[in-house]
């Protein structure tokens, strides 16, 4: 692809706590649809975004059983953007900061996620057309 780009994102927020996680994945999804190569460095709470033990639940306040509620799971969104990038000729390299994983017990992730270090973020950013850090508050 002549106009293929490489973008890097650093994320910090755990899922389900604020709007930044969703906006980050919206951005990654746009890049994935374009077939870009996308690097994600998940730092601190963001290592929980691809956590494989996230589970749906019913919602009595909404009057929904599990299936009808279809509760969003960021791990599904992560898997979806990984697949979308591949479908369009790009790829997602999702790196969870290893020490952040250890302190949170967040080692179990969906496929396509690897463990890494801040050096990985530096190297990714150095080789990218653009880098965006989305900090937590």
């Amino acid at each position, binding site marked *: 692809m002549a106009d293929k780009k490489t973008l890097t994102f650093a994320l910090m927020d755990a899922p389900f706590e604020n709007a930044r996680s969703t906006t980050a994945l919206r951005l990654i999804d746009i890049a994935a649809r374009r077939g870009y190569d996308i690097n994600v460095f998940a*730092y601190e709470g963001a290592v929980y975004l691809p956590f494989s033990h996230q589970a749906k639940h019913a919602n009595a306040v909404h009057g929904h059983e599990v299936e009808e509620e279809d509760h969003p799971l960021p791990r599904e969104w992560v898997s979806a953007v990984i697949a979308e990038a591949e479908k369009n000729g790009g790829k997602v390299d999702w790196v969870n900061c290893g020490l952040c994983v250890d302190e949170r017990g967040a080692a179990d992730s969906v496929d396509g996620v690897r463990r890494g270090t801040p050096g990985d973020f530096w190297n990714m950013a150095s080789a990218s057309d653009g880098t965006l850090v989305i900090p937590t508050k």
Partner: protein
Amino acid sequence: MKALNIIETAYRGTLEEQDDTIVWITHAMKGAGGDLSVLLRGNAVNYGVKAQNVGALSFGARQQKSAPQLAEDVAKLPGKGVEVFIVEEDLSERGIAAGDLVDGLTAVSRDQVPKLFDGFDQVWHW
């Protein structure tokens, strides 16, 4: 590539992490060969204050052994080749005098910050 790490939020999980996670990642990236500087602004200018002191923290019998030493962590950066800039107006608005700060920090005025960015390929606001 040269990057500027901007730190604005302060005391964000610093007791659990025993450091500031962005000061920490700056040290880590520098150690991995990165070329970085730091800009302390907003409440994070308080990280330069020498008198910071985390008191004894314990939960039941579980006592913290390795309390964060934020001023020291910041003060070590220039020696590693990471210049640390600090915004003057943010200090004065918070009643922090120059003598309250650790050595080695480079004061800049708020007006100078846009010009400061010129020297960096990447500007990361953490």
